[in-house]
């Protein structure tokens, strides 16, 4: 069963990828989608099985051995032995659910969204291939296999961002995503090497068992565990677009919208969070590394939210929102609430995919218009999409009635902020206040998006407005599943991830104990529990003030000019990187190309040698004069030289 969950998407991708034109486009879509739905059904069974097993064992049982599915031996070289194996525990089961559900929805949704595109075989093949790589990543038994999945999703992300390959901007965005991720992946690879160096294995079981032995060790003068954790975290930062390595994510919106929903919101970008949770036993041992994670996460949450308030491209707003929410997950993991991080990862996957697919529906309705300045008042035209967007936004803003009911984000975001507060450390407090401010902004930009897009008067091309239409059922119906997740996932999963069942539920898959941060988070002051909701509602109210009754946005922009410029230009990250890294790199490259390669290597090497040889050949040809006395002379000279050589050298 576990094998089928992971490999069904691969088989689907192989059939459509190799089938080529022999398959009709429809057939390719149906094959990949049905394979994924099958995988999703199996994943449900797997999840229920794992949860029942863990719950039955009960809390007292502690860690439960994960289920292992041995596939093949990959390496066996000296001491280094490595298997292809699936590791099924709560962590991977949760990820199975998230990945297969969102992927199935996106597969089916894409049938409608990509209607009329000539490359849908390719598109669905990539989607399925991506899903396989992602499942491989989350079910991996060791760091190297995880890296395989990690790079696999990276490649698929590259392929899908550049799906419209005739567009220059899409190609550049794809390359940017790949190159920025290279920085993170380099850190990740170093982390794997360091782990192997110190532990002698990359197998999770061996690493966690050997973790105690690492305590006193050092690597190049630094604490070994801290070095490993920071290196792995650099990898996580790249994949999860954390501050510093985040620049590729907004540009990745060049890909088709379903791709943004699947890869750049729900699954791939959360791989970094997953990695930190998977390696939680190590992070627990290094307070410094955990603090770094907390600070980076908090800074990202705030930074991305500020930028999100000023963007006009509907997809970019959601992209910055994703970036911000990933920051929340990281600082949750940083203060030690890994369950909270996974909780938010799961709920976020549902409501963010919903938002993206809803935005896709808007874009579809308006003939690929993405600029919110050219939208407005279209809720009457596409009421179902509007409803979905409102649900998604409510979940994102974390709205709910304490003690009665709340949307998904209400529970998970609160859990994270409470944990941060409960940490009572500098990092925790920073994260808490940054998180509160970001929560206000989140609510603000969510409603800004809703109001600009659906309310007010229409500001775009009249013709487009007249033809605006609700999306077909194949796009609308799958969203219901995500909407259900966005509404109920928080309510029903709270106890598992963050409540009293958490020990039985995770059963050793992440690091936690009875006096950890989550326990303290349950005993924070009442105002801390209410604060996120209050600032969320305040954010919504502010948004109504600014955009609800005529547009006060431009006026505010003028009032807060310096801040507005800073936010609108994404804190100038792209410009700074361009000046510091890109242009010097290009200059160095040009130097090595023009001077190093063409002049020195080619000049002295291939071209130079070839030139000398040709010249030498002409000289030698000139020896062949055709005169017989020259020939005879050459012979005699030869004899004389040889004879003299013997007389002088050998004879004496």
């Amino acid at each position, binding site marked *: 069963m576990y094998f089928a969950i992971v490999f069904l998407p691969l088989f689907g991708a192989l059939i459509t990828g190799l089938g080529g034109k022999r398959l009709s486009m429809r057939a390719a879509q149906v094959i990949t989608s049905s394979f994924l739905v099958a995988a999703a059904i199996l994943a449900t069974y797997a999840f229920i099985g794992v949860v029942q097993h863990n719950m039955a064992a009960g809390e007292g049982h502690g860690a439960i051995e994960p289920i292992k599915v041995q596939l093949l031996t990959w390496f066996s070289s000296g001491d280094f032995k490595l298997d292809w194996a699936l590791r099924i525990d709560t962590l991977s089961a949760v990820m199975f659910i998230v990945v297969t559900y969102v992927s199935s929805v996106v597969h089916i949704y894409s049938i409608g969204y990509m209607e009329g595109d000539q490359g849908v075989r390719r598109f669905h093949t990539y989607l399925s291939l991506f899903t396989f790589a992602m499942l491989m990543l989350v079910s991996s038994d060791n760091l190297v296999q995880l890296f395989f999945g990690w790079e696999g999703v990276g490649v698929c992300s590259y392929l899908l961002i550049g799906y419209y390959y005739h567009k220059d901007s899409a190609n550049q965005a794809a390359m940017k995503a790949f190159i920025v991720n290279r920085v993170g992946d380099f850190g990740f690879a170093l982390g794997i090497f360091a782990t192997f160096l110190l532990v002698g294995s990359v197998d999770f079981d061996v690493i966690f068992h050997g973790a105690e032995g690492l305590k006193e060790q050092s690597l190049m003068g630094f604490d070994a565990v801290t070095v490993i954790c920071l290196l792995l975290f650099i990898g996580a930062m790249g994949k999860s677009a954390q501050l510093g390595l985040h620049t590729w994510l907004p540009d990745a919106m060049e890909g088709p919208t379903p791709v943004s929903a699947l890869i750049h919101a729900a699954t791939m970008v959360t791989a970094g969070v997953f990695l930190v949770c998977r390696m939680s036993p190590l992070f627990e041992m290094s307070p410094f590394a955990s603090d770094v994670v907390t600070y980076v996460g908090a800074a990202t949450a705030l930074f991305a939210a500020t930028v999100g308030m000023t963007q006009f491209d509907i997809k970019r707003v959601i992209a910055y929102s994703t970036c911000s929410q990933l920051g929340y997950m990281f600082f949750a993991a940083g203060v030690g609430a890994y369950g909270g991080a996974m909780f938010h990862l799961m709920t976020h996957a549902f409501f963010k995919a919903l938002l993206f697919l809803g935005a896709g529906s808007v874009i579809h309705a308006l003939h690929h218009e993405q600029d919110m300045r050219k939208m407005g008042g279209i809720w009457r035209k596409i009421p179902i999409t509007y409803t979905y967007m409102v649900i998604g936004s409510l979940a994102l803003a974390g709205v709910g009635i304490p003690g009665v009911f709340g949307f998904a984000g209400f529970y998970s975001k609160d859990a994270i902020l409470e944990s941060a507060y409960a940490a009572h450390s500098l990092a925790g407090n920073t994260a808490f206040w940054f998180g509160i401010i970001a929560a206000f902004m989140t609510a603000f930009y969510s409603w800004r998006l809703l109001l600009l897009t659906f309310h007010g008067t229409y500001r775009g091309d009249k013709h487009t407005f007249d033809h605006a239409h609700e999306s077909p059922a194949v796009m609308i119906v799958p969203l219901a599943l995500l909407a259900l997740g966005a509404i109920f996932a928080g309510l029903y999963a709270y106890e598992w991830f963050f409540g009293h069942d958490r020990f039985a539920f995770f059963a050793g898959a992440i690091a936690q104990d009875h006096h950890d941060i989550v326990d303290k988070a349950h005993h924070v002051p009442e105002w801390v529990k209410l604060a996120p909701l209050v600032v969320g509602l305040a954010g919504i109210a502010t948004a109504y003030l600014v955009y609800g009754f005529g547009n006060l946005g431009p006026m505010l922009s003028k009032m807060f000019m310096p801040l507005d410029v800073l936010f609108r230009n994404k804190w100038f990250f792209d410009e700074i990187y361009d000046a510091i890294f890109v242009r010097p790199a290009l200059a160095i490259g040009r130097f090595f190309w023009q001077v190093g390669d063409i002049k020195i290597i080619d000049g002295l090497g291939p071209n130079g040698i070839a030139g000398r*040889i*040709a010249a*030498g*050949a*002409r000289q*030698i*040809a000139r*020896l*062949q004069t*055709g005169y*017989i006395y*020259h*020939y*005879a002379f*050459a*012979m005699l*000279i*030869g*004899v004389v030289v*040889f*004879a003299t*050589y*013997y*007389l002088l050298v*050998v*004879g004496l």
Partner: protein
Amino acid sequence: MTHLDLIAFAPELLMAAAILVFILFGAFTGDKAARPVAIAAVVAMLIAAFLVANQGTDDGNFFNNLVAINDFTGAAKILILLVSAASLFLALPHIARDINKRFEFPLLYLFATLGMMILVSAQDLMTLYLGLELMSLSLYVLAALRRELVRASEAGLKYFVLGALSSGMILYGSSIIYGYSGATNFDLIAGALTASDGNNIGLLVGLVFVIAGLAFKVSAVPFHMWTPDVYQGAPAAVTAFFAGAPKLAAMMVFVRVLVGPFGDLTAQWQQVIALISMASMILGAFAALNQRNIKRLMAYSSIANMGYALIGLAAGTPEGVQGLMAYMTIYAVMTLGTFAVIMLMRREDRPLENIEDLAGLINQKPRMAAAMIIMMFSLSGIPPLAGFFGKLMVFMAAINEGSSLMIALAVVGALTSVVAAFYYLRIIKLMVFDPQPDELDHKDAREWSITAGVAAALLIVLTLGFQHLHAWFVGASAVLFTG
């Protein structure tokens, strides 16, 4: 002279008898006899080769120690006879076209081949000279056979004058050797060397002259100058003969003289041979780069290839000699095959000589082009073709010999084969990728296609059966190192 001498010399006697009979036949029949005589000559050579192969038991010296018969001379003669027969077979269509149907033509092949057989059997400097002159004089005439063509006359004359000079050097060297050792017989020279007090400078100087004369025959630098002019001037069929059997014979006698009587001086002559070898490889590789005429190109190619073969001799070890024999055998196959293709470069029944005329051959004559591609790959030494193993053998011999001079030789050999690969591969590029200027003649003589096909096939078969070839040469070379 006993009847044992006659039995031991049976193959040579057969050749001589055949020559006499064919002369008489030709004299009475006129030029009509050219083709039948040529075919008969091919058959005679094959019978002689058969005889050589089946006389293995009575090894030893004969005719008052003037000739030696052993495994080495046997192997050399078989190779020479087969290559000569193949060259004459390849030339059959030319007798009617370019040779004016002279019946002397096949006879000269027979004379030259007989000379080579005597040459490799020589156990005395006098016999050596006799064989060498019989071979050379026949070759001079062959080079100038088309005396109505200026270029052919010029080639013949150059070859003759320079050849006479080299013969003079051999004679002069022989007399010096006689002066210092008191003998012309190989065994006696060897004995004199063993008995000497270690100062053999006189003998060495004599040896230098003999080496120069033999190096002329194998066209090694700096005694190579005649080669491009003669190769270009002579008809392609004759050039094919020049490039094969005489080189083989001269190389074998080179081995016999240096490893035999002068075996004690290996350390001394090794340096000269290494120098000659190195210069040949370098010049052969570089000078061919700018050649447009394919026969001149093959001339430089043969100079370079003699350089490679001489690596084996310079090593002075059994392994080196085996390498040389293998290299020369494979080289002869490649050369004959290549010339078979060169011969079909004809337009309106006139031979063409520029490599550009090969352009686009793959479209018009795919099978011949395929054979040529195999030949060129083999010449550039690309595995798994036989040419690779030839090079491998001599390089291995040099490396295993171990002295820095020999290792340097192997390195130079490897580098120059890279340079040489350029002009071999350019021919392939021309045939496969370039457009054909004009169609070549459509009707090819069967002899050409058979030779090209067999040669190409041999290059693959020799790879598969390389062990057997190698075992044969191991046995043959063993004789040289027993004394």
